[in-house]
């Protein structure tokens, strides 16, 4: 090869081991594509969706219960995935719903990451009673199902927030509830990795010249513990999306005026046995595709970052 020019950052990413493993894995490519399509469709929902399901003036109740790809008996309108009981286009509500599901899922995982990584770094680096207290709190929390904890946080928030604000705050409460129920696994993994890293000599070298503990944690240790964290984060996004759907299905999630995939499934299941199957099926399939593809991406990433499996 005559190409000896300095290569750019993009080339290095493309040339890295992880990228090579991605190119070799058909499962990773397919699930990556599925996830990418859903994410892009969700982000660009206002430009892609044929109707705006949040705009009551665009809805026609006469359009309700239109089956997919068939003209409505009264208005003659045709919808790709049919309409729900209020005449909302199911395809559009899925796009907007995926948007909310993804936003809640990713934000909740980011919150859990920030909490878990901070707690794990401090517990692993300081050790002693700080470590003991943080990890016992984590153990106690881990002994409850996380959906129960999310329900508890949701209930407490409901008591605190005045009724007029509840609808507007619902999404944020949901993010906090899922995020707080999910920080433990990040904390545990980061704590273990930190305890390994802090004994290494590069940390001692930094301490010899008087680098502050905070700086050592952020600049030295954090980059070296991020590998396993990214794997957990990817799988956690899938789990958080499912948790959001579960909470919304139970009716404690986002309100029907801003439906997420879980809310859509809850609405749809009321009509399943009366024959309007499409209201349930399409949101459920979307949720399945999204959760499955993100989960499989996480599985692939775990294998790709594990040197023992190479």
């Amino acid at each position, binding site marked *: 090869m005559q190409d000896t020019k300095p290569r750019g950052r993009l080339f290095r990413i493309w040339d890295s081991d992880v990228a090579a493993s991605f190119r070799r894995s058909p499962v990773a490519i397919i699930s990556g594509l599925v996830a990418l399509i859903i994410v892009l469709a969700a982000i660009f929902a206002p430009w892609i969706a044929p109707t705006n399901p949040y705009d009551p003036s665009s809805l026609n109740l006469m359009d309700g219960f239109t089956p997919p790809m068939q003209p409505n008996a009264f208005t003659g309108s045709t919808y790709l995935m049919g309409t729900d009981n209020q005449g909302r286009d199911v395809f559009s509500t899925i796009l907007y719903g995926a948007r909310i599901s993804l936003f809640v899922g990713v934000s909740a995982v980011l919150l859990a990451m920030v909490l878990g990584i901070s707690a794990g770094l401090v517990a692993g680096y300081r050790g002693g009673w700080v470590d003991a207290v943080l990890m016992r709190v984590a153990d106690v929390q881990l002994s409850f199902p996380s959906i129960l904890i999310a329900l508890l946080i949701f209930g407490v928030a409901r008591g605190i927030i005045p009724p007029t604000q509840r609808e507007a705050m619902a999404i944020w409460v949901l993010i906090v509830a899922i995020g707080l129920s999910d920080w433990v696994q990040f904390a545990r993994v980061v704590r273990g990795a930190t305890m390994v890293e802090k004994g290494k000599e590069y940390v001692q070298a930094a301490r010899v010249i008087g680098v502050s503990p905070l700086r050592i944690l952020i600049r030295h240790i954090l*980059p070296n513990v991020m590998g396993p964290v990214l794997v957990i984060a990817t799988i956690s996004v899938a789990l958080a999306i499912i948790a959001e759907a579960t909470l919304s299905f139970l009716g404690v999630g986002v309100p029907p005026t801003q439906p997420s995939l879980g809310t859509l499934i809850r609405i749809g299941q009321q009509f399943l046995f009366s024959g309007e199957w499409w209201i349930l099926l399409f949101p459920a399939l979307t949720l399945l595709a999204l959760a499955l593809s993100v989960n499989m991406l996480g599985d692939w990433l775990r294998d790709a970052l594990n040197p023992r499996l190479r």
Partner: protein
Amino acid sequence: MAEPFLTVTGLTRRFDVSKPWLNRVLEREGRQFLTATADVSFSINKGETFALVGESGSGKSTIAKMIVGLLTPSAGQIAIEGQGIDPADPIAMRALRRRMQMIFQDPFASLNPRWRVGDIIAEPIRTLGLMPRGDVGREVGRLLDLVGLSAADASKFPHEFSGGQRQRIAIARALSSRPEFIVCDEPTSALDVSVQAQILNLMRDLQDEFKLTYLLISHDLSVVRHMSNRIGVLYLGRLVEVADAKRLFHEPQHPYTRMLLDAVPDLALSGRRRKSVSGEIPNPISPPAGCAFHPRCPQVKAECKAAVPVLCATPTGRAACVFAGGAPASIP
């Protein structure tokens, strides 16, 4: 004689190795302490290389870590040019950190794998704020040049280098704050023999060029012989002999020193019979009474088990043995 650069007096470090509180209560056990170093005193003159030798677990690295401030002593003082080190005084510590650096044993662990070499070397400069930001890049290039690498290596990552090259990077980092004193904790024990000599020669060249003072920690007597002016021999956390390097190899005063020297492989094939080191270093949690070496000592007497011998003057330096100094002739 001029004031020594570094003085260590009565340096002691105990580690709490007790079981957790609940286990202690349930199993009715008391606290347990491991004495890693006990009452160690020595001084290092400016510009010389002082070596600490000893088997694994003799407390060599603990002493090194206390001197650079990675561990706080349980008792004793460390003073630089007569001025005591007080870890509680951040301003004084900041000034001292600039003058002291450390080179570590494992060049694969001592460089952060996620950092570029340039950032690794510049870390002391940036942390201590030693020069304007614009000049750091040029200084890193100069340091890389100094240790036999090229300035272009600054943008690479540590995994692109061999063990010997990594140790050169670690030396460049140690030099970047322009220190007067460098603690070298087994700087070559993780390297191939052929590379060891290169690194040792580099360290000597740098010592001549910058008038550096070294504290060399090693268990390799040939490294110590090549590098040092004076040698301290540690056994189970206590200094058993301190002597001029050349004379220590020819006239060891302490039976332990003699045992170590007898075990050194002889490349000259002089026909000398090698005696292997007998016995093992005892458990430092419950060291033997009296002279800690007495269970392994070929010349053990009743008085050795009674009291810990103190360092006393010998023809070559100081030694802590009832036989040393007074009756060297009685040792066969």
